[in-house]
Structures are given as C-alpha cells and as structure tokens.
C-alpha cells in the first residue's frame, strides 16, 4: 500500500453535546482526489478546520508528511505544505487580485520581512502569482479589486492563491460553489490535472463533479464516515443510498 501523505486518526470534535466529528479516519495518498461528501451539517467543514488547525480536536490526531501536526498552529501547517481554499471566500478584499496572489507567493517564499523594497517590483513573486492567475483564468482581472469580483471569481482566486503556495496537498472546501455549469466543468477539468501536482481532499456538493473526479469517496453523516470507496462502490452502497443519495432523489 502507498504511504498516505495526510491521515486523521480517530479524530473527534465535540461542540458541547454535538459530536461534529466522530472517530474519523481518513487518508490522502499521493496522486489522488479523495472526495468528502455528506449532507449539510455532516461535519465536512469541521473536518477541514481540524486538519488545518482552525479548530482543535477533542481527541485523535492529524498526521501529515510523516509528522504529527495536531499541535501545529495554522501558519505552521500552511508552511508544512497544506494548501487550503475556504468554503466562504476568505481574501484580502481591499487588495487587487494580483496582490492577493502575490501574498500567497510571498508566504511561500518566506521573505516577508522586507520593508523598503516595493513587493510588486519583485519579478519572481509577481511572475509566480501571474502564472497562478493564468492557470485559473483570472489573468485578465489581475488589476481588479478583489472586493469587486463576482462570487465565482473569488472562488477561482482562492484556488490561485493556494496554487502559489505550491503545497504538498490541497484541501478544498466546495471550490465549485457559485461557479455555474460552465465554470464547474472547467474547474473539474482543472482539478483533474492538478492531482498530478499534489493530491486533493475535496469537499463538494456537485455530485457530477465528485463522481467524475474522485479516486475515492468518503461519506460523512452526523460526523461519522459511514463508507469509503470508489465511485462505483459508493453508488452501490446501501447505507449511503439510504442516508444520503436517496435524499437527493426525494
């Protein structure tokens, strides 16, 4: 078996009496897209937050690239190689699109303690940022203020910033939300190629995209993983159909 790059071990998270994450063991191996699906409130975002360090687990641990990262802070996890996109776009809204991408490249370079040299004249950083914008199709908007972008364009910028980090693994929380049919199709194609660079833990509501992309799918219900398998296995799984897919048809 291939050694997993990212792994949660018996991860639990309680919010008071609510168990948002219930003994979750999932893994991400190099080259794959592992999709995480489940009804609203199943605990998908909470799981991402636990992996990224935005929430601390009640018990259990998170392992990444051979190390226990459960006690690392958020910036340290990012530097360790976890690239994240947020479910609700989280960008510097007063900055331009290019500035947001440069911020990512800057974080990656670690050369932030430079006080007198204009950062937008740093050719290496700007080139890296522009390349990322190019890849998601935002190059034409590089000068726009981020606050003036459409919802879908912000989703793309989230992905572009994650690209500038050149992470070892991507965690994407609903990257297709708000993209529209055409945008979703393009993003699907993009993620399909991206998995060669780094594996992706993908949370997505768009089932067409999920079944098309995912090497493995885990189904989360009430904080518990009720099934993990290939698209075909998940489609055929009776418990999943009952708990989740059936609901969609109804």
């Amino acid at each position, binding site marked *: 078996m291939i050694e997993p790059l990212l792994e949660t071990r018996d991860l639990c998270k309680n919010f008071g009496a609510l168990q948002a994450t219930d003994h979750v063991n999932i893994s991400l191996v190099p080259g794959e897209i592992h999709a995480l699906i489940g009804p609203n409130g199943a605990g998908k975002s909470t799981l991402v937050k636990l992996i990224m360090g935005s929430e601390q687990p009640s018990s259990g641990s998170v392992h990444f690239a051979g190390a226990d990262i459960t006690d690392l802070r958020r910036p340290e996890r990012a530097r360790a190689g976890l690239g994240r996109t947020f479910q609700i776009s989280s960008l510097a809204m*007063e*900055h*331009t699109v290019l500035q947001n991408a440069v*911020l990512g490249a800057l*974080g990656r370079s670690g050369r932030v303690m430079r006080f*007198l040299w204009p950062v937008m004249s740093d050719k290496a950083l700007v080139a890296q940022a522009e390349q990322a914008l190019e890849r998601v199709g935002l190059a034409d908007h590089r000068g726009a203020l981020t606050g003036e972008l459409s919802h879908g364009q912000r989703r793309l910028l989230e992905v572009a910033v994650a690209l500038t980090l050149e992470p070892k693994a991507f965690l994407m929380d609903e990257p297709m939300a708000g993209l529209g049919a055409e945008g979703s199709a393009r993003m699907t194609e993009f993620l399909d190629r991206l998995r060669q660079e780094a594996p992706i833990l993908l949370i997505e509501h768009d089932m067409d995209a999920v079944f098309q992309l995912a090497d493995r799918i885990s189904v989360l219900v009430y904080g518990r993983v009720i099934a993990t398998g290939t698209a075909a296995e998940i489609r055929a799984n009776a418990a999943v159909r009952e708990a989740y897919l059936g609901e969609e048809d109804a």
Partner: protein
Amino acid sequence: MTRAAMINAALFAMLPITAGVALALDEPFIITLATKVAILALAAVGLNIALGLGGLVSLGHAAFFGIGGYAMGILAHHAQSYTPLMELPFLIEGTKSMPVIWLVAIIASALAALAIGALSLRTTGVYFIMITLAFGQMLYYFAISWPAYGGEDGLSIYVRNGFPGLNTLVPIQFFGLCFAVLAVVLWASGRLARSAFGLALTAARQNPERVEAVGLTPYRLRLVAFTISGAVTGLAGALFADLNRFVSPTMFSWQMSGEIMIFIILGGVGRLFGPVAGAALFILLEHLLSGVTEFWLIYVGALLLLVVLFARGGLIGSLAGREVAHD
C-alpha cells in the same frame, strides 16, 4: 501626477512655504507653529503605521512620545548639570547632541513598543484599545512620581540641543531639520506600505485567516509594525521636547494619545499624508480659535464628528477622492 499626489505635494509644500513667508515677515512664532506641525505630524506618521496599515487602534502612543521626550530630557539634563547618568558598572554621560539623543529615543521607544506590543497584541478590539491606554497611563503616573527627573513639574532644558553644522537656536534652521526628518520618514513609510511587509500587514488587517493560510503569522507582523510605529513616535517625542526645551508627564497623558489619533482621523486614516494634513488642520484651528474662545476643542470635536460621520477618508479623502489600489 494623480489628483491625490498633487494634493499631497501641495500639502507638504505648504509647511516650508509657511515657514519661508514667516521668515520674510519676521514672524518667528509662525515658524515655531510650522515646526510644531512637522513634529506632531511625525508622531502621527508613526501611529499611522500601526493604525492605518495594521488596523491597530492604539490609545497608548503617548507612551512612546513621552519616552522619546524623556530620552531627550534626561540626557540633556545630565549634560547641563555636568552629572553622569550612571557611573557603575560603566560610565554614561549626558549629551546635548541631537543625533545621539534621537538614536537613544528611537531605541528606547522601540523596546518599549516591543514589550507593550508583545502583551497587548494578544488581545484585539476594545481590549487592545484599553490595554494600550493602560500602559500609557502607567508610564504617565510613573513619570509623575519619579522625583529624580522633576516629577510632576518636568524638566527644563536651558539651551536647545545641537545638530552638527546647524544652529538649532535659529527657528528656521530647527524647522528645516524637523521638516527634513519628517520628509525622510514619510518617504520610508510610503515605501513600507508598498513593501512585502506592508502587503502582508495590510492583508492581516483585512483578513488574518487568509494571511495564516499562506503561512504567515499576523501576530508577528503586527508586533513588528507596532515596534516601528512606536520608534517613529518616540523620535517625534524627542524633537517635541527639543522644540519646547521642556519635557513633562503631560507628554505621556492619554489626551496626547488622543490628539495624535485625532490628527490621523482628521487627515485620513491610512493615507500617507493624512497625518500632515490632520496635524496642520489641528494646529491651525488651535491657533485661530483658542484666541476667540477657551472652549476651542469643542469645535475640533464637532469637526471630528463630521469627519467620522460623513468623510471617512478625512481631509485627504474628501479632497483626493477614493484611494486607488497601488499596483
């Protein structure tokens, strides 16, 4: 040149023009007023690094202003009384040399800002405002109750400190010196806003979560910004004390912190030249109104209210329009 750049240039040129005209008309008092504007603007340029770029609402910047002032006062006091500052473990003498005094003021206020920032920046919002205010008040009461350096009465320095190649006792020369310092610091602070550090700091103000997601630590960025900010305000404090040839605990007062913040709000938060516009407007109002009524601050208060309610960009914002993102 953009409209904003023209307004900035005009505002900035106003100071030396005022001083020059006052020189021609033989009105040294006006030169002193222009010098005061330059120095207070410098103090506000310092605060603007924390407030405008970092979004750190510090109500304790008088601490650094006062430390700069007392750095000057203490060094010059020992020099004029021919007593050493300390003899053990090694001898430190006072000095009347501005460059040395400035260096001490900058280092002392930077260290104080580092310490105060390290503690206060663990909090945010109202708590941050309160804790910076508390530190400022602590220093205020410390200065009052420290008899060695005049306590409540403060310290008088009989002759203004010297700067190589200048006669600082001549008002226009001292003005030129203060204006040059302001110009250099404004230039540096403009560069800072556009630097890698500036980009990360302003992003941390807008969205700390985003900054963490790219592997940077907002706390560290803010602490560095707060330290630089305190150092600049400290330098202004040393100049202010030299302007008055006097330093007293009022430099540490929360009213002083409030005034420095008012300059920024009047001029425009986060605007490079906002502090210059704000300080000039404040001193102008003080000069014009305080002769008419002793309650002149009420008018300043009303103006402040109008700015906050209707012109969030301050004076510069209303003149130059919306800030365009510098790319």
